[in-house]
């Protein structure tokens, strides 16, 4: 797996201009509006998308058959995408959080707790995003994978809109959802960890099955 990780990090190094641009674009709202929280979401997701794109890179010039004849198993190939994604996405998130602490030291009006909560929520969403997108990309490739991504985003936004509408239509529904405010913080943290572990576990199993059946 180390060799595959090195390969993907080399690909990332080759795209350093892209990442520099990504960083510069992200810095504008952060510096202009003091919105450091934007970076916590924007940068990790930028790296997250690049992880998904490494699967596309492996499709280019038919590189995937060559990778699978190297001393790696199909299981390792699938697993490496998760490891790489977590290193890049979560690693970037941690760096952004540290940036936030640094920013907070010099700005008294900066609220640390909501910033860390935002970071935590971003991490969970990012991991669930990986868990959904990696098997889709492995199965359908980059072209169809983009269509699926679009469909998922629409579905999620649509579901949130519908749920919001339904909640406001019914007082009982609002009361039922109100219990969420009674859950302690540790409950949310534990629930998030369980959700992430489950999502990654199920996603990894699906990805391994997809790779083991793939004909090249």
């Amino acid at each position, binding site marked *: 797996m*180390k*060799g*595959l990780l*090195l*390969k993907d990090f*080399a*690909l990332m190094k*080759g795209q350093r201009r892209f990442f520099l641009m990504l960083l510069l674009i992200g810095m504008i709202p952060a510096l202009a509006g003091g919105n450091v929280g934007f970076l916590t979401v924007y940068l990790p997701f930028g790296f997250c998308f690049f992880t998904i794109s490494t699967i596309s*890179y*492996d499709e*280019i*010039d*038919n*590189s*995937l*058959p*060559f990778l*699978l*004849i*190297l*001393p*790696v*198993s199909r299981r390792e190939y699938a697993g490496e995408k998760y490891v790489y994604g977590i290193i890049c996405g979560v690693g970037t998130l941690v760096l952004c959080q540290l940036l936030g602490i640094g920013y907070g030291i010099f700005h008294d009006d900066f609220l640390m707790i909501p910033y860390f909560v935002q970071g935590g929520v971003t991490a969970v969403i990012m991991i669930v995003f990986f868990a959904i997108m990696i098997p889709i990309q492995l199965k359908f490739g980059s072209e169809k994978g983009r269509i699926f991504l679009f469909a998922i985003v629409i579905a999620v936004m649509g579901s949130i809109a519908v749920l919001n509408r339904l909640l406001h239509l019914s007082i009982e529904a609002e009361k039922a959802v109100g219990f969420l405010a009674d859950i302690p913080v540790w409950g949310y943290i534990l629930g998030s960890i369980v959700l992430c572990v489950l999502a990654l576990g199920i996603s990894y199993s699906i990805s391994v099955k997809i790779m083991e059946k793939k*004909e*090249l």
Partner: protein
Amino acid sequence: MLKIKDLRKSYGTFELNCSMEIPAGCITGLVGSNGAGKSTTFKSVLGLISIDGGSIEVFGKEIHTWTKAEKQRMGVVLANGGFNTYLTMKDMETVLSRMYPRFDRAMFREYCRRYQLPADKRIKEFSTGMLAKAKILAAITHKADLLLLDEPTTGLDVLAREELLDMLRAYMEENEERTILISSHISTDLEGLCDDLYMIDNGEIVLHEEMDVLLGQYGILKVTQSQFDAMEKQYLLRVMKESYGYRCLTREKQFYMENYPNLALEKGNVDEVIAMMVKGEAI
């Protein structure tokens, strides 16, 4: 070193059904026209596609029992596909050195220098010849015991092909136990390199012969109708009707040279033998 027994794979109307045995220390050629089944055979051996039947053993182990150790002993060139072309030779060196315990960095760098493969240039900017050499380098610089080369010289000019073949000859000279299975539809490449040859057509092995025998004992007879009627036919493998009479393939060139000195007899070459085995009729 490599044993393929009754390998079967179907793609729609195409059906591969072949058996081959590649002994250690030999260079074996697999020749056939486009779509004959060469790449399908390679992909089956490498586990890139599933097979419908038969068995494949490499280093004495069935492919479904392979571990990393078996893959580390193999070097492969695929007809379509190779290292990601957004990467550089330097990146290739880094990745291969991690994956292969026997990877030889000094040899890799020496070959890059000798064949003028720049370390920091993206592989997508390489010429066809440079790309072919890069693929071979990836296969030979970790001291593999078995090389599987699927059409490594396709698209190359004569000089580039000769350089590549020299790389393979040098590779074999380093260790007598090394083995190569190389496929090509450029038969002249194989004539000067291979110890024996398998010919595949429409998914089936139509001929297996040692190269010395094929070039030394095979011949093409060009005869008129009356000559054909009068000649001994038991040593003819294939015949083909021509406007002048018949073209005949024989494995006993010497017999016809001694007994029918007036017949037009040409030395066999791989191209002619393939054409006759595929298009000719058996007697």
